[in-house]
């Protein structure tokens, strides 16, 4: 899914929301090479668990930055995107992002040729984002690793929805949704 950067273009800032946003970001990290900067606010009690992260990407690649405030999260994200030292920058944002902030981050990502991923609460993104994804785990009696990825905003393409499965051995995403179950069709999962 991420092989040819078709949906998640590098040099751009993207937004991800939903309960499975972290696994989406980790899968994106696994698809890239190089260091990962993962910025979150210090007061956030949820932290990545390396033993679980290892299924998606090597935890040794991730450098965590625990910022004091939400402003510092955005500041560090801009700095990291602009420097281009890391191949992917993930920031957990907890407050609504303004258009100015989103645009600045977009420009920083372009300048540093870095992929920026912003994990936002539902409905709190900025209009400057290249794409916005909503990711949620999905229950299936047969398969226990299904995820539903919905592309809900796309500046340069169409929207869509995919039911995907993470193949741990092959380390790649396998799209399992059938034609009739595409987003927008009558039987699409909600």
């Amino acid at each position: 899914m991420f092989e040819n950067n078709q949906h998640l273009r590098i040099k751009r800032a993207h937004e991800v929301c939903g309960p499975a946003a972290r696994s989406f970001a980790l899968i994106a990290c696994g698809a890239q090479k190089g260091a990962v900067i993962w910025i979150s606010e210090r007061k956030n009690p949820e932290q990545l668990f390396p033993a679980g992260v290892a299924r998606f990407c090597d935890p040794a690649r991730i450098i965590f930055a625990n910022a004091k405030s939400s402003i510092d999260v955005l500041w560090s994200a801009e700095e990291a995107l602009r420097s281009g030292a890391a191949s992917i920058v993930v920031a957990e944002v907890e407050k609504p992002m303004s258009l100015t902030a989103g645009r600045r981050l977009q420009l920083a990502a372009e300048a540093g040729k870095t992929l920026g991923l912003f994990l936002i609460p539902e409905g709190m993104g900025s209009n400057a984002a290249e794409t916005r994804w909503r990711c949620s785990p999905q229950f299936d009696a047969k398969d226990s690793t299904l995820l539903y990825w919905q592309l809900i905003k796309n500046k340069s393409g169409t929207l869509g929805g995919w039911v995907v499965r993470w193949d741990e051995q092959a380390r790649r995403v396998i799209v399992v949704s059938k034609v009739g179950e595409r987003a927008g069709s009558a039987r699409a999962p909600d």
Partner: protein
Amino acid sequence: MSLWFPRLASERVLRARPIDAPFALTQTQSNTQRIYCLNEQAEQQGLRKGMGFSDARALCPDLQTGLANPREDTRFIQTLARWTGRYCPWVGVDEDGLVLDVTGSTHLWGGEAGMLDDLHARLDRAGLTHKAGMADTRGAAWALARFGGGVAAEGEMLQHLGPLSVAALRISDEVCNALQRLGVRSIQDLVALPRVTVSRRFGPDLLLRLDQALGEHPEPVSPQADPVNFAVRMTLPEPIGLAGDVSAGLERLLERLCLTLTDQQMGARRLEFTARRVDQASSQIEVCLARPMRDPIRIAALFARGIEGLDAGYGIDQIRVEAVEVETLPLRQATHHGAQEGDSLADLITRIGNRIGLESITRCLPADSHIPEKSFTVSLAAYSQPAAQGAWPSTGPRPVYIFPPESIAGYAPEPPRRFHWRRMSFVTARAVGPERIAPEWWLDDPAWRSGLRDYWRIYTREGRRLWLFFTPQNPGWFVQGEFA
């Protein structure tokens, strides 16, 4: 000239806390507390160095004591060595004392006696017991300082040294005892003996010491090297105020500083830039580096943001850069790649770290524990290397993220069929488990007071896949992580 401080350690303590009573410092030597150094009053009570502490207390019940701190003593004698630089530039540290090569500097004090008078007066005022000996050779001065005192004029060495005991020759106790047993008590007795017999009986060391004392064999004083100072400064003829001028000055200073660092094979870890303004106020910029560095161009770039925010006031007339913390950084073969891999990442860590704190930038390293929360350690990214690939132990399926356990309703050992968590209600569709994890009994971890944990992977009909655990010894259900 040789200086001897027989009560250095106790006097160092007494200088800070004067006591007019018997006082001694004790040190634990092979499981006994022994007296390490004592003052004059304690010696008058019959105490001796090396005596057991309990014996000393029995002899002198009002003895006051402290713990010996040899490291501080060494530092104190280094300070004294620096101070004696006022008499001559050539100062070396001896055991319990100093050795000064005063050749050519005595005339500044009106001769040897004048210099000694001044030295005695100043050390007495400082409250330090000391003995000084002055002679043509280092060995003879040592002997005079410890076994007699005074000045041995040129060519009269043997007259002064002759009556002293053979122990004054800096020889080991065994040799000294053996000589005493043979009836060779003073140095003149030893000189009278034929050299061949002496060296056959006692080896060459004894004669070497004798020759060194009498000046037949040279023994130079090796002076203390000046500690390297990683600081440079620049005083400007005209005050400056433009950010560009300050950075230009900083670049020049960093070039000089980095040359010193390269000479010493050191790299700066923390740098402090001080700009003194014409009104005597000064402002500082501190930069903590994510890895030891000595590249002036890269360091200057890291200061750029700080210089922009600098308040120049009426103008800056002195700038100074100091490497406050340095680490060894060996020289490396230059490669045609130029910049090293990871340099840009280290610079990024430095830049972010200087805003949110270098201690807030971390990475996870594997740890040897089966407790989930302890299966990794968080270490500072600036001071650690990433774990090797495959260093992570393989465990059962683990969640992507965890949080402190959050309690949910339910007391039965079977997984709840429906439950509420974070104001959401869930219906359990499938439960996989249990995986029992026992607390580490050798550690008292407050989070694990509730005893064993049975971990379950709960697949809910709503989609969320949660990591729950049940505590059988203290019935209750908790959510600790999520798998997606």
